[in-house]
């Protein structure tokens, strides 16, 4: 793993591809988060809401995406994490998580983050601001 301090604009964190989304994933997230909106777990409720099937909690995907940054916990922290939910995630979808460094002002790193599905469609998009604790290695 490269140090975040060594990253320059245009670099990306290593993508993570999730396993196909299962009902159990969403039941677990409902239990862990307390979000029991039934369109995320019960087929009939999703259909009643006009959906073809249950969809993942937007916050499930947003929660997953943050793990791109977890390994860097000694270098800095997520100060800002903002997301727009762009598309729905259905059972069986394969989601890929991405983060690209877009701007760096000394130790303040700004990443563009997104989650895309197997068709390449964005399901969420946003920004992470990740300040580093220590003075960074001088940029060349």
């Amino acid at each position, binding site marked *: 793993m490269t140090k975040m301090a060594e990253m320059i604009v245009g670099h990306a964190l290593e993508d993570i591809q999730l396993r196909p989304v299962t009902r159990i994933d969403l039941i677990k*997230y409902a239990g*862990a988060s307390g979000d029991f909106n039934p369109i995320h777990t019960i087929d009939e409720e999703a259909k009643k809401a006009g959906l073809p099937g249950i969809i993942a909690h937007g916050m499930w995907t947003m*929660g997953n995406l943050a793990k791109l940054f977890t390994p860097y916990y000694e270098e800095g922290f*997520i100060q800002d*994490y903002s997301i727009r939910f762009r598309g729905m995630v259905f059972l069986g979808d394969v989601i890929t998580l991405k983060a690209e460094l877009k701007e760096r002002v000394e130790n303040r790193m700004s990443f563009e983050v997104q989650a895309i599905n197997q068709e390449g469609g964005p399901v969420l998009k946003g920004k992470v601001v990740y300040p580093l604790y220590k003075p960074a290695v001088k940029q060349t």
Partner: protein
Amino acid sequence: MLKDLIGKASIKVKNTVERGAVKKFAEAIGDMHPIYIDEETGKRSRYQVNIAPPTYPRVFDYGHIDGLKLPNKGLIHGEEAYHYERPLLVGEDVYCYTKITDYYEKNGAHGEMGFLVLENNGEDRNGRTIFTSKSVVIITEAVRRLLKL
């Protein structure tokens, strides 16, 4: 009218960042990193204790705003933005409240939709902010009719 509720806030609720709940949450988002769950890793880290994932505040109780009754169904989560002063520490108490900061209506593909902007806050025992989060919740025309908004 939701517009009349702009500026209203809930009373602070004391929450604790519980070790077991953090583990369950980390598992649910597929991020079982030792910094969240392994005590030894927490001790050796710069925080000297385990931390919680950045979207963990979803778990907290923010209290109730008088007059705000939203259904469990029919809402669309449009946007979410967290701002942290520092990571959340496992074991600490967090005093949480929520506030309605805006409400507006727009014409969209699904008729006239309402946009409710909520700001959630988490403070330490001395009243210092640990995090704030902004949620934009979209209320569809069907739900607005149901709620007679």
